[in-house]
C-alpha cells in the first residue's frame, strides 16, 4: 500500500516543475511554434486557392485567345478576299481605260488622216484642173491659129445652133 500513498516532497517538486515548464514553454515555445504552424497552413491554403484561381484565369485567357485567333483568321481571310477583289477591279479598270484611250487615239488618228487625205485630194484636183485648162488653152490656141481651123470651129458652132 505504501506505493499508493503519494509522497509530499515529490508532489511539491513536481507541481512546481510542471507549472514552471508549462508557463515557460507556453510563452516561449508553444506560442511561436503554433503561430508559425498556423501561418504556414494559412499560407499553403492561400497559395493553393490562388493557384486554383490562376488556373481558372489561365483557362479563361486561353479560350479568349482562341476566340481572338479565330476572329483574326477570319478577318485576315476577309481582308485577303477584299484585296483580291480590289486588285481585280483596279486591273480591269486600267484595262478599260487603256482600251478607251487607245480607241480615242486611233479615232483621232483616223480623223487626221482623212483631213490630210481630203486636203491632198483637193490640191491634186486643183492641180489637175489648172493643167487641163492649160492643155486645152494650148490646144485651142493651136487649132484656132489657122483659118481652116477657125472656119471648121465656126461651122461646128453653127451646126450646134439649130433653128427650130
Amino acid at each position, binding site marked *: 500500500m505504501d506505493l499508493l500513498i503519494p509522497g509530499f516532497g*515529490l508532489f511539491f*517538486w513536481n507541481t512546481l516543475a*510542471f507549472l*514552471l515548464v508549462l508557463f515557460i514553454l*507556453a510563452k516561449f515555445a508553444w506560442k*511561436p*511554434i503554433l503561430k*508559425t504552424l498556423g501561418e504556414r497552413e*494559412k*499560407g499553403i491554403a492561400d497559395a493553393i486557392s490562388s493557384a486554383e484561381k490562376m488556373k481558372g484565369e489561365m483557362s479563361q485567357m486561353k479560350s479568349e485567345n482562341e476566340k481572338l485567333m479565330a476572329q483574326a483568321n477570319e478577318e485576315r481571310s476577309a481582308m485577303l478576299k477584299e484585296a483580291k477583289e480590289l486588285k481585280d477591279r483596279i486591273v480591269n479598270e486600267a484595262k478599260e481605260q487603256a482600251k478607251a484611250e487607245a480607241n480615242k487615239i486611233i479615232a483621232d488618228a483616223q480623223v487626221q488622216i482623212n483631213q490630210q487625205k481630203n486636203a491632198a485630194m483637193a490640191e491634186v484636183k486643183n492641180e489637175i484642173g489648172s493643167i487641163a485648162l492649160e492643155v486645152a488653152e494650148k490646144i485651142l490656141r493651136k487649132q484656132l491659129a489657122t483659118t481652116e481651123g477657125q472656119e471648121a470651129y465656126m461651122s461646128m458652132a453653127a451646126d450646134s445652133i439649130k433653128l427650130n
Partner: protein
Amino acid sequence: MRCKSLFSLLIVAFGLFCLTNSVFAQEASAEPVAAAAPANGGEKKLDIGEIIFGHVGDSHEWHFFEIGEKPVAMPLPMILYTKDGVKVMSSGHFEEWGKDPVTGVVKSNSHEGVHIEKGMKEKVVADDGSEIYDLSITKNVLSLLISVVLLLWIGFSVAKKYKAGGATKAPSGFQNAFETAILFIRDEVAIPNLGKSKHGRYMPLLLTLFFFIWINNLLGLLPGGANLTGNIAVTLCLSLISFLVMVGSANKHFWGHLLNPPGVPFFVKIVLVPIEIISLFIKPVALTIRLFANILAGHIIILCVISIIFIFAGLNKFAGAGFAPISIAFSIFMFMLELLVAAIQAFIFTNLTSVFIGSAIEEAHHHDDDHAHEPESIEIMM
C-alpha cells in the same frame, strides 16, 4: 533503438549480476529464494522483492550498481522541514543500515535527529517521532529536474528554428519530428475534442502534458533511470492540474447537466446526481492510477523477468545460465512494449484530459441525451 535497448538490458543484467554475485558465493545451500525476509539473520539472501521495490521506488541517493559489496551511488541533497526549522544535509550521512530488532524495519543510522526507514519505499523519520516534511532532492526529483531541463532545451531549440525560418521555410531535422507530434496533438487530440474555435487556449497545457509524460516515461526506461511517471505523487499532480483546468473552464451547461439534469424525474435525480458527482471526481483518480499503474507495472515486469535468471541461478547455476537467453529475449520484448507504452500512455493522458475539458466546455445542443457518453467510452480503453 533495438541495439540501444539490448545494450541497456545488458547493463541492467550486469548490474543485477554484480549485486547478487557475492550472495551466491556465500550461499552454500541452493534453497529457493523467497521475497520474504531472510529467516536466519546472519546469512544474506537474494531478496527479489527488495530489489524490485528498490528499483521502482524513490530514494534519497542515486544508486547505480554495486562492486562486490560496495554500492556505487550518488548521494543527493536532503531538504527537511522539521520542528526545528529547515535542515539541509547530504544523504551520504546515512550509510549504516540495519534491521530494527523491535519492529523488523530496515533503518539507517541517525543524523541530526532523523533517520531513514526503508519499507516498500524510503521514509525520513524523526528520531523523536515528530512530523517531518521531506522536500529532499530525491532520485525522482533529480530525474524530474533533468527532464525539465531537457524539455526546456528541446522546446527552446525547436522554437528558435521556427522563429528563424518563419512560416515559409519547410521544417527540417528534429524540428520535423517535433512538428509531427505537435500536429498530432492538435489535429487528433485537441480539435476533435475541444472544437476548432476553443482548442487554442488549451493547446499549451496538452502539449506540455504530452511531452512531459513522454519524456519522463522514456527517461524512466533508461538503465539506472528513476521511475518518475510510475510514482503516484507525479501522476496525481498531473491529473489534479488537468482536473482543475477542467473544473475551472466548465460552463453553465456542464454544471446544469451535472447537478440538475433536465428531463429526469425527481426520484431518478436523487440517484443520478450523486453518481454524476462521483463520476466527476473519479475522472482525475482514473487518470492518476492509469498512468501510474501502467508505468509501474512495466518496470516491475522487466525487473521480474530479469530476476528470474537469478532465482534460477539460486537453485542451480546452470539453470540460471540456461534460462538467461529466454529471460533476456522476453525482457527485450517487454522493453519494446514499454517504449510503445511510454508514447501511448502520454497520448492517453493527454487525450483524456482534452476529452474531460471538452465535456466541460461543451455548449448546449439539440441532442440533450448523448452528451455524456463520449468520455466514458474512451475511458474504457487502456
